[in-house]
């Protein structure tokens, strides 16, 4: 037995639990350990989309239309697929501009227009009233039904009940009180209500569990699974047609499509959806999970809708029970009172969740975008001079909440009974869909203008009022019905339900077609025909190009004027309170590495912009602009200047790309430079060594020359023999000096590439013979055996003849110099192979140790270093020879080991130079 006291007590206990959750979440948030910073909580809070409409109304719709309830959930699923593109952008824009509501968003986009914000607020409030009334109706109906348990009694004409039994009014009042406690306990500059979000997420779980419970009960408890249930329904002729319900229904497919589109808009632009999805979002990354988790939620809560609908139709075949109540009446008729109570709580969750978030969102809009801009402009109120406005702001919001719920109640009384739950909700959907052109156009099209948005919204809303609101009031008896049947003044073309003769469509589709044509048409046409103000131009750019900007200071570029820090501070303190203003200034200062209030701040464009953004968080962009303008002397920017700044900005983007590229190139260049520097350092060291060595090599013969010259000069009595010997030494050392100088110059020429190469066809056989002939005298003196093994004929090489002789001379004189002093022999071999000539010069000297094989080819390295007898060479000969050979594409190397002679070899490519 369920007593009304028990139901009321349970309801309050449940609301108390919600409040406890919210309170706990707020405390955690204040402590900086937010519990809602989770993609799962975010996804569940989005499920505030599922209201009493979903909970009770879907079954009602399914009972008459079959799958007709589904577009309401498929549409959002499809829309959410676009969230990655659309919602991410809206989120980014809202965070950068501290947007506080949908109205604030639209107003802000179109030049912070207070008029537009007000219009959006009015449309939202009027448009949402039917939706709120739906929740009141659902809660009061379910309460009334449950109270009469175990009887099944339909609550008809509730409006006629005396006021103290008017459940809907009580529900409205209790929800108002609850919402005030939830949403307006204090003023948050960012409009974050973490406690509310936590409670909403919890409610989403409760309503899902309750609905799944009753669904499972009907499907598996009353019937024997899906198959059994559908089979029994198919057996009833009336229900059989619902198995393929899209055929034959008036405008079946058109209606389906339009409902899908409508729901796509609703999931974006219902004020409560905007509130939880955008305003309460704490991390853009939560979208990643929500994109699929929320659709999963919608799928889950819809799985049992059709089974419950068919179960209800089978259980109550006479139509005495309203299909909107099947969810509750099925457990009741089966005498499951606890399940019925759970269903009631689930429905209460769905309704309260919607009402709380919706009214908070609407009250914020009413306060920030409708009343404050007006109040601030009224000089007689002297609001500008009030020290603390936070109480006023909270007061306005609380009043707005009460007012909105009372209006919802009023609508319920006026029109609530004439429509089913879903039909009531769809009227609201159609209203908020009017925001779509202005918002979507606003974030993707810079050309969208303030006047365009105003015209579009006005036109769309007018058509909506005429085709949906007016018929609703007429059907409820508040307006004459002949208005619907014959049109105003009897003009048939203007009949609200068949405007311009368009008939055969359901009411929503009909209204959507005409309102969208009017809305989009006016928005685009007017936007294209007016020119934007500087403010609009700036805001359009800030919104559309949000991903191209960095940081919050984007707007600061557009401000020019003078202000004082104390003025700005007291302005912020008036609206946010002293503590919040101090915190805001401290944060600003610390970002600049300063301490507030000890260090002086500069009241520049950035600070003014910062204060405006902070203020916008509390009172909306339009109001914030008015307030900031009251304390700063602003010089308005001309449209040309704004354009200039924007062009500059886009140039900066291009420039920064270029800069990035440049810096990458620079890095590469730096690496190259470092390498080059290393090479240069090495070269420098080599040059130093070279000079040092050359100097040494020059000084040594000079020393002998000078010493002997002085001896001869000082001592005329030197014997003739000795004098001759000394002069001989002087001559030889002078020759050595000359040779050295020549070779250094030669080397310098070769290395710098300035050497003259006189090229001709050179026969290496001849070169060897000529060299040997030239050395004939020396060879005879030293008594060295020379063997030349030369082939009959070899190919010619293209080379400088003198250079070739130089190479041969060098190798041969080295060989002669180093070969065995007593039994010396030298062997020369010439061979041709694989397009190459190879010349070997072998001696039987003491050889060269392997570690010196490369070193001997470097400058000034003298093999003689290891010998007792220092040879009189410059140390450049082998180096130059190798350079010459390599110049002609050949190679020069030595094979030897200590004690076994040495073989110097080089190759030269024949024919054309390789």
């Amino acid at each position, binding site marked *: 037995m369920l007593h009304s006291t028990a139901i009321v007590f349970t309801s309050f206990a449940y609301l108390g639990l919600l409040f406890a959750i919210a309170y706990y979440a707020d405390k955690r948030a204040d402590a900086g350990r937010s519990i809602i910073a989770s993609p799962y909580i975010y996804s569940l809070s989005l499920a505030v989309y599922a209201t009493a409409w979903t909970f009770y109304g879907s079954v009602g719709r399914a009972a008459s239309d079959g799958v007709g309830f589904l577009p309401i959930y498929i549409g959002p699923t499809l829309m959410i697929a676009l969230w990655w593109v659309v919602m991410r952008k809206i989120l980014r824009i809202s965070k950068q501009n501290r947007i506080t509501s949908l109205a604030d968003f639209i107003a802000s986009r179109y030049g912070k227009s207070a008029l537009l914000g007000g219009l959006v607020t009015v449309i939202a409030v009027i448009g949402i009233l039917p939706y709120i009334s739906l929740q009141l109706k659902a809660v009061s109906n379910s309460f009334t039904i449950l109270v009469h348990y175990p009887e099944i009694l339909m609550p008809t004409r509730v409006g006629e009940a005396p006021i103290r039994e008017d459940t809907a009014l009580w529900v409205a009042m209790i929800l108002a009180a609850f919402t005030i406690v939830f949403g307006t306990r204090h003023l948050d500059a960012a409009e974050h209500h973490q406690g509310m979000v936590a409670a909403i997420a919890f409610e989403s779980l409760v309503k899902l569990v309750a609905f799944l419970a009753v669904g499972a009960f009907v499907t598996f408890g009353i019937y024997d699974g899906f198959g059994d249930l559908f089979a029994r329904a198919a057996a009833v002729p009336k229900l059989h047609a619902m198995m393929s319900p899209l055929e034959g229904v008036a405008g079946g497919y058109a209606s389906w499509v339009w409902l899908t589109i409508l729901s796509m808009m609703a999931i974006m632009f219902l004020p409560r959806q905007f509130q939880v999805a955008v305003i309460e979002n704490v991390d853009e990354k939560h979208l990643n999970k929500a994109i699929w988790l929320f659709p999963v939620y919608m799928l889950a809560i819809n799985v049992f809708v059709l089974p419950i609908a068919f179960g209800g139709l089978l259980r109550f075949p006479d139509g005495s029970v309203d299909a909107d109540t099947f969810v509750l009446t099925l457990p009741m008729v089966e005498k499951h009172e606890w399940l019925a109570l759970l269903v009631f709580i689930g429905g209460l969750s769905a309704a309260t969740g919607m009402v709380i978030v919706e009214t908070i969102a609407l009250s914020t809009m009413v306060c920030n975008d409708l009343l404050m801009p007006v109040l601030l402009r009224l000089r007689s109120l002297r609001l500008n001079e009030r020290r603390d406005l936070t109480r006023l702001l909270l007061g306005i919001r609380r009043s707005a909440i009460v007012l909105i719920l009372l209006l919802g109640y009023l609508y319920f009384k006026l029109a609530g009974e004439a429509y089913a739950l879903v039909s009531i909700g769809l009227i609201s959907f159609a209203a908020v869909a009017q925001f779509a052109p202005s918002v979507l156009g606003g974030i993707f099209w810079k050309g969208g203008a303030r006047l365009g948005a105003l015209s579009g919204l006005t036109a769309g809303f007018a058509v909506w009022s005429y085709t949906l609101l007016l018929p609703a009031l007429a059907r409820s008896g508040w307006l004459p019905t002949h208005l619907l049947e014959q049109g105003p003044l009897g003009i048939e073309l203007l009949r609200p339900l068949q405007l311009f003769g368009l008939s055969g469509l359901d009411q929503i589709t009909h209204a959507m077609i005409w309102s969208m044509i009017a809305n989009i048409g006016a928005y685009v046409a007017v936007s294209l025909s007016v020119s934007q103000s500087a403010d609009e131009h700036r805001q359009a750019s800030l919104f559309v190009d949000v991903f191209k900007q960095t940081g919050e200071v984007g707007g600061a570029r557009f401000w020019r004027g003078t202000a004082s820090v104390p003025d700005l501070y007291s302005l912020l303190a008036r609206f946010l309170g002293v503590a919040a203003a101090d915190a805001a200034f401290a944060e600003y200062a610390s970002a600049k590495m300063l301490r507030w209030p000890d260090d002086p701040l500069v009241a520049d464009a950035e600070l003014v912009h910062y204060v405006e953004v902070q203020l916008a968080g509390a009172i909306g962009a339009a109001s914030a602009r008015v307030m900031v303008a009251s304390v700063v002397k602003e010089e308005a920017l001309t449209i040309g200047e704004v354009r200039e700044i924007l062009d500059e900005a886009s140039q900066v983007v291009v420039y920064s790309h270029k800069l990035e590229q440049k810096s990458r190139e620079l890095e590469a260049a730096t690496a190259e430079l470092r390498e080059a520097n290393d090479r240069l350092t090495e070269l420098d060291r080599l040059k130093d060594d070279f000079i*040092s060595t050359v100097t040494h090599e020059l000084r*040594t013969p000079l020393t002998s020359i000078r010493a002997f010259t*002085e*001896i001869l000069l000082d001592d005329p009595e030197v014997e003739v023999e000795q004098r001759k010997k000394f002069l001989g030494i002087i001559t030889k050392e002078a020759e050595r000096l000359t040779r050295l100088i020549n070779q250094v110059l030669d080397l310098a020429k070769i290395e710098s590439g300035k050497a003259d190469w006189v090229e001709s066809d050179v026969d290496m056989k001849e070169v060897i013979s000529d060299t040997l002939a030239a050395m004939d005298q020396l060879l005879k003196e030293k008594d060295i055996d020379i063997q030349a093994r030369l082939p009959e004929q070899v190919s010619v090489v293209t080379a400088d003849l003198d250079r070739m002789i130089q190479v041969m001379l060098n190798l041969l004189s080295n060989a002669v110099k180093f070969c065995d002093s007593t039994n010396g022999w030298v062997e020369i071999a010439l061979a041709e192979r694989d397009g190459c000539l190879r010349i070997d010069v072998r001696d039987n000297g003491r050889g060269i140790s392997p570690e010196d094989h490369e070193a001997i080819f470097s400058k000034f390295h003298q093999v003689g270093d290891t010998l007792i007898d220092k040879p009189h060479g410059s140390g450049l000969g082998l180096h130059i020879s190798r350079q010459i050979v390599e110049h002609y594409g050949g190679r020069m190397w030595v094979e030897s080991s200590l004690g076994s002679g040495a073989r110097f070899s080089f190759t030269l490519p024949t024919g054309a130079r390789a």
Partner: protein
Amino acid sequence: MSKKILIADDEPNIVAAVEFLLQRSGYEVHVARNGDEALKAVEDCNPDLVLLDVMMPLRSGYEVCKRIRERADWGHIKIIMLSAKGRDAEVSKGLSIGADLYVTKPFSTRDLIAKINGLLQRP
């Protein structure tokens, strides 16, 4: 008794010139043509002065100088470094390891003889 001077240099022509000069000045001259020979000669003939070329085969003049200075009984031996390397760093290196003088090639013969005479305290 004439003083003994050891010339250690691998350039025969320079050796010839210096040898001639010193002999004419009345010194007893010994010759070494590399570092090893130089040390051996010092051992054998116990010279009063050594003329050391820096860049010698087998053992550099620096090394020879160091070896001589390591022996207490050779403390009286005067050392003159002769080098074609005239940079300040090399001069100071030579002096720091115990040479009495550092003479850069090419040198004035009169100067050299005067310096030698000075070191050996002869007028």
